């Protein structure tokens, strides 16, 4: 066998050895990767299992909340009117009126009034609890003044001149003391012996 052939055989052996070493290393790494992916699949399976009812539940919650929003928006607009409703929303949550009501796209264009100029605190409550209330229909003071169609005006009429900023001045309390302009007469017998009744003899 010539020297060149021996060198060739050595080279081939070296190549095969390198292939074996590296491929065994790759196989070991791939086995580690397989084990890791098994853990991943187990975790992802748990996630899938746990999130399975989420879609239905969240959809149902959203439907319920949508119904609630529709109801509250509709009620607010029905009772206060769209303009005043936006004023109320703006009064409670400054800046919220710009977003408008969901079911009333035109509400975004409304210039929300300062609601304190329209409704005064407690006005409606007092009005509803008073003779306007339906329960007052049998009141001995007379029939209820509730107007089903336009009673908001009745409530507003409690302050026809606008809401008073301060109470009307009351008469001043009387001045008492030694410097009081009116001095009350004192009794003479204070500090003296009690008067005795004449004895029976």
């Amino acid at each position: 066998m010539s020297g060149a052939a021996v060198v060739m055989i050595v080279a081939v052996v070296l190549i095969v050895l390198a292939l074996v070493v590296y491929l065994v290393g790759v196989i070991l790494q791939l086995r580690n990767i397989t084990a890791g992916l098994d853990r991943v699949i187990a975790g992802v399976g748990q996630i899938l299992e746990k999130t399975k009812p989420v879609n239905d539940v969240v959809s149902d919650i959203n439907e319920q909340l949508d119904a609630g929003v529709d109801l509250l928006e509709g009620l607010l607009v029905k009772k206060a009117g769209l303009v005043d409703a936006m004023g109320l929303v703006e009064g409670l949550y400054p800046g919220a009126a710009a977003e408008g009501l969901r079911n009333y796209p035109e509400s975004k264009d409304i210039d929300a009034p300062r609601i304190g100029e329209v409704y005064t605190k407690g006005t409606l409550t007092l009005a509803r609890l008073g003779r306007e209330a339906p329960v007052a229909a049998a009141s001995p003071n007379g029939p209820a003044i509730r107007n089903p169609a336009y009673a908001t005006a009745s409530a507003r009429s409690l302050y026809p001149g606008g809401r008073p900023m301060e109470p009307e001045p009351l008469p001043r309390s009387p001045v008492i003391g030694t410097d009081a302009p009116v001095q009350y007469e004192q009794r003479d017998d204070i500090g003296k012996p009690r008067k005795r009744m004449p004895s029976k003899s």
Partner: protein
Amino acid sequence: MTLWWIGDIVLFIVVIPLAAYLLHRVYMAARSIDPSVKEIAQVAEAGSKDLDAVPLLLTTQDQVRQTVVGVAGYGASLDVIVDDAEVAA
């Protein structure tokens, strides 16, 4: 004979280094995957643990339903006792 030697030289200078380089690249690529897979496995387990509270959504669903029923009743009552807004002239 000369061709044998030329073949040997090519083998040692080109084929063996190239094969070693490529095999090393494959091995390093395989090694680099393993830490990533382990991190993904940890994240998946942590994500699964984070979802333990999902069954509470059923309670939330029930409570939302009860709340909306209450709101509906309250709204219906208000609809009766509070008058509608004035009709714009």
